[in-house]
């Protein structure tokens, strides 16, 4: 799991997926994240892929699945760090991750989730 780091700020978990992650470690990352969401009073999860080299169809599926799982558990997931090259490539090949909310950067994502946590009355739909 050296490729990823998990950080907790208040009620927000930040998972940064880095560089040369392989399929297996992506799945164990997902497991670890879900357990963490359950064991801590997490409200929101930020998936930071700023240091990820590419998003192929496997990674796209893992990202949407993870967001879907976290939603089932009652949390909110925001994806940040999609660089223009990745965005272009994903669109080119028809990859979409509709169900996953995105923010331009960590700050914007945190703001979104924090506003939500302190006010406590906005829900996923209003995000």
């Amino acid at each position, binding site marked *: 799991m050296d490729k990823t780091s998990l950080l907790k700020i208040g009620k927000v978990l930040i998972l940064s997926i880095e560089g040369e992650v*392989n399929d297996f470690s992506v799945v164990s990352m997902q497991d670890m994240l879900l357990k963490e969401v359950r064991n801590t009073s997490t409200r929101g999860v930020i998936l930071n892929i700023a240091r990820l*080299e590419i998003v192929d*169809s496997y990674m796209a599926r893992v990202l949407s699945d993870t967001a879907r799982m976290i939603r089932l558990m009652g949390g909110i997931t925001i994806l940040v760090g999609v660089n223009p*090259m990745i965005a272009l*490539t994903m669109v*080119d090949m028809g990859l979409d991750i509709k169900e996953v909310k995105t923010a331009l950067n960590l700050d914007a994502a945190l703001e979104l989730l924090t506003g939500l946590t302190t006010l406590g009355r906005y829900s996923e739909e209003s995000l």
Partner: protein
Amino acid sequence: MSRVEICSEQDIVLARQVARQAALNLGFSLVDQTRIITAVSELARNIYTYATSGSMQAQELKKATGIVGLEFVFEDQGPGIDDLQLALTAGYSSGQGLGLGLSGAKRLMDEFELQSKLGQGTLVRVVKWTK
């Protein structure tokens, strides 16, 4: 010319690294590098997923006009593909994939060739040219 034997998840990462290095060497733009690495990732994973093992060969090409490009050949002796048309259909997967690997790789590269024989194996050849 580089060759990667693909028989583990880590080899998919290796194939991507080889592709990135080759694309860097040829001076591809950042976007084209990303396209190439993504296509390679899809095709290498297909070998691992559907044929268990196989190989990737990377090679530089040069047109008469002087334009250079990068060719990747993915080969396996796996189960092969019955219906090529169907396999190339965006969204079709015989497993749990998104079914965007073959169609995606085709869209990302300049040339795409798929050959397969049931019970004998599959060959995918893709090329990207530096415009």
